[in-house]
């Protein structure tokens, strides 16, 4: 698992690569929480290079979404591979977190 952070004019883009499961979900949470400062306007998680996410990983996404929701900061996901898309559809998380096809779409909506 590897997370690359980029700042696109106040929108934090977190590019997640590899596998997120219970062995590294705490690290995943720490990295995201650490990168989300008070000045962040919106968060886009680019999951294009994410191969697998377990329920422990989903919990981190939910936790971040809830924390941001309290601050009225939007969060969206983009570029999900088919297996990852399927995890979000089965768990129903696609109903509570906005998902876009591409990072450009997500950034356009966030901007």
């Amino acid at each position: 698992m590897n997370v690359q952070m980029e700042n696109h004019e106040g929108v934090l883009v977190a590019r997640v690569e590899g596998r997120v499961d219970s062995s590294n979900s705490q690290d995943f949470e720490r990295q995201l929480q650490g990168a989300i400062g008070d000045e962040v306007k919106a968060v886009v998680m680019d999951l294009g290079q994410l191969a697998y996410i377990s329920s422990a990983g989903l919990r981190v996404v939910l936790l971040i979404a809830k924390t941001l929701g309290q601050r009225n900061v939007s969060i969206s996901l983009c570029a999900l591979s088919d297996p990852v898309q399927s995890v979000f559809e089965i768990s129903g998380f696609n109903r509570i977190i906005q998902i876009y096809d591409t990072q450009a779409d997500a950034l356009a909506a966030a901007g």
Partner: protein
Amino acid sequence: MGDRDSPDYKILVVDDEPDLERLVRQRMRRHIRGGKYGFEFAGNGVEALQVLAEKQDIDIVLSDINMPKMDGLTLLQQIPEVNADIRSVIVSAYGDMENIRTAMNRGAFDFVTKPIDFTDLEVTIERTLRHLDEWRAALASRDKLVAIQNELDVATKIQQSILPDTFPRLDGCEVYGCMHAARNVGGDFFDVINLDGGRVGLAVADVSDKGVPAALFMMSSRTLLKGAAIGVEEPSTVLREVNDLLNETNEAAMFVTVFYGVYDPATRVLTYSNGGHNPPLVVHSDGTSEELELTGGLALGAIPGFEYGQANVRLNPGDLVVFFTDGVTEAINMSSEEFGLESLRGLFRDGRTPGAREAAEAILQAVQDFAGEAPQFDDLTCMTLRVADE
């Protein structure tokens, strides 16, 4: 084994029905004589609190709801003040959702319905006592600040202690369930709930995350689900109730995916609601199979106020429904390949589905054979419903 003066476990029965004491002493006489259970009796909540104040060694309170002076729901609120180490089992009327909901909110551990079925009561008491033993062990190990692995062992034991180990005998179908816990506890559970009219409630669930907090979240999910299942008819309403209750206190953003279905052997109809869980597989006696359609659900605990969908399917004689957690299909072998849904389907291509127990055990065995020495990070849980042949 203890002697008659100090039984292994003490149970306080609270009910205003005077005949109940005689009945309990008669039906439980083997356990009383063997020194396993000791019983105390109280006619209402006030008397119960007096008994609890005098006797600090009560393990379980089994209480009716409607009683004079102080009812069972008020008693539930008072118990932790007297002794926080007690587990309460509530005797409720079938379908009395309002009282069941209040009891769930006030920390009831389990439910039995009226009229009391003593076989069911014994299973419930045994399970509660097993849970208490594990819980006390967990507290003791926390006190000693043992290593994380021990905490996970404790979580596994808490998990094992709430799973059914006996399955109801039903007309027209068989039910079985089993679990193989990973070292790294994922928090799976399943439950088989007797409902009225010969129907049966079937639940399989997977809690996000691991360790003792996840085990405790799993425990309350199970209790809430059982309470809601005996309180309301529709599976979608059951999931909505449980979801709202789980959302009342959930800072850690934990969630649990739940598939809950009610099967009626008389009509062979399975009515279900899927709360974010991987869909069960229906295997027909000709070897074909399909997944049960999703119902537009969401994992429970994620957000309050969510409305769950519902669907139903009419099963055929000889059909086998496999309810499982993603630990089964996502198990990996030494080459990092997943077991996958196709391998699961492949186990039953030969035609004529096996019995419920044979099928569930064959699935777990096949997954373990496939995984070999590769370390597994998720529990393997499998529950099966096999419709009788024509």
